[in-house]
């Protein structure tokens, strides 16, 4: 097997040094009763050729193999990934390295992540960003735990029901065993978080609102901040579409204490939902409360600039049972990817791409309205919006997939049972006017 370099001679010589006669002898400390007596029941090994065939067949069973027109977002976005990104991130010095525990030979990763942290703080208008988390949902759950740890008298977190449904489920998973409670805040008929419901609550440590929210609408973050301040609780905001900050006023501008976000839009392929990129940012005051790795700048013995992992005493390998989080590996290579992407699009590119996302979504909404869909809400949105579809839409939608490889929106009923025939549409810079016109034509 090509990954196993040992020749028979090698094995003989090495066994001799260990004082054993066979490879089986190396496992003498395993009680015989526990040893597996039969071969593992796995498929016969495939050659590289056969593996390619097998995987090609599997990949062809996914409609994505054909290249489809995607009008769905909901936490996973179809953006153009420039050719240099996969090229650079596949450099094995980045990909096959591990956590930078020996900083002298990890300056590539460390400087790259330091630059990532910096660009994320620029993007979000916050003081500090960590080196990444698994995804927005888990980063948001960590933010909830930070708020609950800082306010020992509170045992609840208020979470808007327009936070991504999966993220709310994750928060619930994390909070329950620790004895905390997530209080769901409903939304108004205008499609925004009902802040009046928050005013009435007691014993909460923080308020979490997603903006742009799951319906695509831009929330009134200034009002959210006011409510949080009046109740002396932490203001947490989240987002699933990172490119929104190329156009919209960022969370830092509204005084957010903590921000959790999804960075998949920053040069990372959708890949059936993972790995994505969890972003977590906070104010300077919360520096020592942030979970996960942090890269800091320092100097070496010659006075040269260099980078190291720092503030490690927050983390599990030092604090152990007193650590605020158990996170060890994060999504490092995806953070590098995002840094490369942000460097590539730059200040000019992010503005233009964000504008195009918004412009195309507005156009899509207008042509769908003309085609007979009902625009349910009248809120400013970024690149996603909700439409009520005509009665026969479900079949049409399936036809559109099978005949035109077009995914026309996401059915919202499984997430919000009262919203029957409501669909969440998304338009990114990748969809063309032609495709949007075609969709409208088919729907009408």
């Amino acid at each position, binding site marked *: 097997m090509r990954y196993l370099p040992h020749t028979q001679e090698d094995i003989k010589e090495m066994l001799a040094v260990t004082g054993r006669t066979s490879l089986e002898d190396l496992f003498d400390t395993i009680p015989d009763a526990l040893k597996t007596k039969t071969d593992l029941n796995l498929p016969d090994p495939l050659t590289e050729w056969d593996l390619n065939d097998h995987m090609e067949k599997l990949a062809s069973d996914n409609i994505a193999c054909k290249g489809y027109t995607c009008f769905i977002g909901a936490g996973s976005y179809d953006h153009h990934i420039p050719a240099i990104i996969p090229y650079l991130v596949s450099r094995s010095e980045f990909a096959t390295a591990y956590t930078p525990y020996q900083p002298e030979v990890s300056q590539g990763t460390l400087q790259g992540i330091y630059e990532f942290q910096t660009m994320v703080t620029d993007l979000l208008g916050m003081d500090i960003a960590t080196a990444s988390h698994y995804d927005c949902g888990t980063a948001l759950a960590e933010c909830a735990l930070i708020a609950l740890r800082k306010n020992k008298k509170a045992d609840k977190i208020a979470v808007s029901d327009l936070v991504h449904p999966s993220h709310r489920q994750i928060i619930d998973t994390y909070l329950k065993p620790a004895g905390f409670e997530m209080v769901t805040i409903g939304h108004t008929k205008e499609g925004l978080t009902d802040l009046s419901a928050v005013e009435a609550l007691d014993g909460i440590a923080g308020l979490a609102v997603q903006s742009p929210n799951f319906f695509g609408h831009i929330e009134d973050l200034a009002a959210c901040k006011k409510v949080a301040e009046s109740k002396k609780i932490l203001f947490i905001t989240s987002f699933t579409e990172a490119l929104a900050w190329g156009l919209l006023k960022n969370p830092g501008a509204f005084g957010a204490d903590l921000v959790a976000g999804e960075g998949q839009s920053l040069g990372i392929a959708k890949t059936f939902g993972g790995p994505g990129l969890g972003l977590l940012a906070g104010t300077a005051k919360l520096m*020592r409360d942030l979970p996960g790795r942090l890269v800091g700048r320092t100097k070496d013995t010659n006075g040269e600039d260099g980078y190291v992992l720092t503030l*490690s*005493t927050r983390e599990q390998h*030092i*604090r152990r049972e*007193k650590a605020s989080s158990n996170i060890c590996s994060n999504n490092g290579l995806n953070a590098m990817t995002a840094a490369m992407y942000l460097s590539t699009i730059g200040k000019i590119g992010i503005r233009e791409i964000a504008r195009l996302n918004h412009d195309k979504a507005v156009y899509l909404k207008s042509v769908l309205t003309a085609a007979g869909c009902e625009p349910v809400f009248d809120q400013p949105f970024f690149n996603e919006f909700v439409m009520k579809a005509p009665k026969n839409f479900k079949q049409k939608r399936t036809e559109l997939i099978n005949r035109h490889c077009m995914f026309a929106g996401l059915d919202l009923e499984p997430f919000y049972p009262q919203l029957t025939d409501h669909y969440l549409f998304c338009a990114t810079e990748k969809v063309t006017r032609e495709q949007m016109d075609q969709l409208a034509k088919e729907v009408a």
Partner: protein
Amino acid sequence: MKEINDLNLPEDVKYTKDHEWAKSEEGIVTIGINDYAQDQLGEIVFVELPEVGDTFSAEDEFGSVESVKAVSELYMPISGEVAAVNENLEDAPELVNEDCYQGGWIIKVKPSDNAEMNALMDKAAYLEMLKG
């Protein structure tokens, strides 16, 4: 790491099993970590302090001291209310290494029971404990 005989252990303070020192002056008890503790920890990068006004019982955890690779909790040698915290430690945590009995003091406490100081060790007893 220093040898036990090279440690700086003043006569005029009391010692605890957690390698802290306590000195009573005019009704206020000043508390810090001793030379053994600072030497073991290495270069200190951060001291987590309580708030003025916080009250604790003896043996309660009131803060912590961090080096790059380790965290050491701080425990109250006596019960009482925090009267002052050493704010210089925020910008210069290294004071604890350089001058642990004077400039590197950590908190000052108004004791709730003056008798508790008697339960602490003097230098000789502390040295016994270290050597044993």
